[in-house]
């Protein structure tokens, strides 16, 4: 029984591509494409905080995620996604060295060009590459991966269709080289053993994704030296 489950488990993920410098007007930016999911993240700042903000001896992080009207199969409104904005904030704040830009704000804005499943994990990973591109000090890159639970099977990096009938999902954002989890969310009904299994699967995928992100930044750095 256990072997059968292992056989049916999809342990590969879709092709992941990262590119820095997608938006010239921003301090740093990145484009990520994982399967059909396409995301652009721009980072602005560190710049002056809004006037209404009170004094802070550490930097602030401001995140916003929005969708294009044509990102989803059914034409949407293209409005801000408040939930994803706050989740992006939580996933990143633990990785950024906020002491390095006191009194100022770093803005991280994401636009989902096309939604093909696992949107939030792609946004988070892409945002950390964009932050690195902007030269914002971080403890480590943040790589994020989700798994869907479909019946007895775990599916890593689910596509839109798989997400639509999942029984549960688990998303981890982690800093691979520090082996730390910055964010973890679970929905649906899970046993402890299953959570353990899914977490290990995700963490392994995170460290692989982290390597891809790192090599993208290295390439960009080499190209700019020439």
């Amino acid at each position, binding site marked *: 029984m256990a072997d059968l489950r292992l056989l049916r488990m999809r342990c590969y993920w879709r092709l992941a591509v990262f590119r820095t410098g997608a938006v010239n007007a921003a301090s740093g930016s990145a484009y990520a494409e994982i399967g059909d999911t396409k995301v652009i993240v721009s980072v602005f700042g560190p710049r002056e905080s809004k006037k209404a903000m009170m004094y802070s001896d550490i930097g602030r992080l401001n995140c916003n995620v929005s969708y294009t009207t044509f990102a989803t199969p059914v034409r949407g409104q293209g409005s801000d996604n408040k939930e994803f904005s706050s*989740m992006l904030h939580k996933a990143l704040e633990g*990785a950024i060295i906020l002491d390095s830009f006191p009194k100022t704000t770093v803005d991280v804005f994401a636009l989902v060009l096309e939604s093909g499943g696992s949107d939030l994990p792609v946004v988070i990973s892409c945002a950390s590459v964009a932050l690195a591109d902007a030269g914002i000090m971080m403890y480590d890159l943040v790589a994020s991966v989700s798994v869907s639970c479909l019946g007895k099977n775990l599916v890593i990096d689910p596509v839109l269709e798989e997400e639509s009938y999942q029984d*549960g999902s688990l998303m981890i954002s982690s800093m691979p080289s520090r082996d730390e*989890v910055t964010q*973890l*969310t679970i929905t*649906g009904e899970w046993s*402890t053993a299953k959570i353990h299994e899914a977490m290990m699967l995700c963490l392994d995928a995170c460290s692989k994704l982290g390597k891809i992100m790192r090599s993208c930044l290295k390439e960009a750095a080499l190209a700019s030296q020439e």
Partner: protein
Amino acid sequence: MSVREWMVGLSAGEKHFIQGGIAQDLRADGRKRLTYRPIYVETGVIPQADGSAKVKMGATEVIASVKLDLARPNPSQPGKGKVSLFVSCSATAGPMFEGRGSEELSAELSVALQRCLLGGKSGAGAAFDPSCLSIVDGKLCWDAYIDGLVVSADGNLLDALGAAIKAALINTRVPVANVPAGASLDEDPDVDLSSQETTRIDTSGVPVIVTLTKVGRHYIVDATSEEESQMSSAVSVSINKERRICGLTKRGGAGLDPSIILDMISVASHVSEQLMNKLDSEIAAAEADEQM
């Protein structure tokens, strides 16, 4: 973090006292690390709602209500009623709730509760089965609007809201809708709601939410806002009677080692059993009080 500290206004000595107390398993109010404050439950506090409850944990006070509305079910789920859940924070609940602060916190709490109580997309892990809200398959159902209100905040809002919603669901009476034979349901449905009969929602699967707050190297349950100001991170786990995890949210900025998260889940699962029993007996007592 600095903002939180400023809000609570602790001196260096006080911070040290709180952290030291937690390290020695004797907290500022005399509790052990894994002990809850006394829980007080009152049900049926809002007469207009179909179900309601008030929960107090120390100085934290929250109200939850369940309102049912007749509606047409979603074509993709013809046999189920819709369930929506929102939390708002009263501006009088604490200094951090003024202006936009309350909006952000409300959104955060709403999302965390939705994750803990409404289950996955297929409905697995939901607090209760929304098919019990169906009246006529594909034509008519009850939509449940669950609203939480934070009246006074002194830490551990998520657990208190989770408990209040559980109590409100147990308190909910679903009116029996009699559909006259031969009535056309394609137009505005003509439904007889005059009967005094009511049914209950099957609440045996409603989970409890346990938040473990990490201060220093230790975790505590039911943190007060002073203790929360000293936290590095917190993990909220929702656990049902079968001790299965129905949802999990990590809060707070600092990263956690994966093995610590797994340890926190097992501690939470252990604590949940005591909380579940305590809460069940409190709610039963409150329900008995209301009937009198």
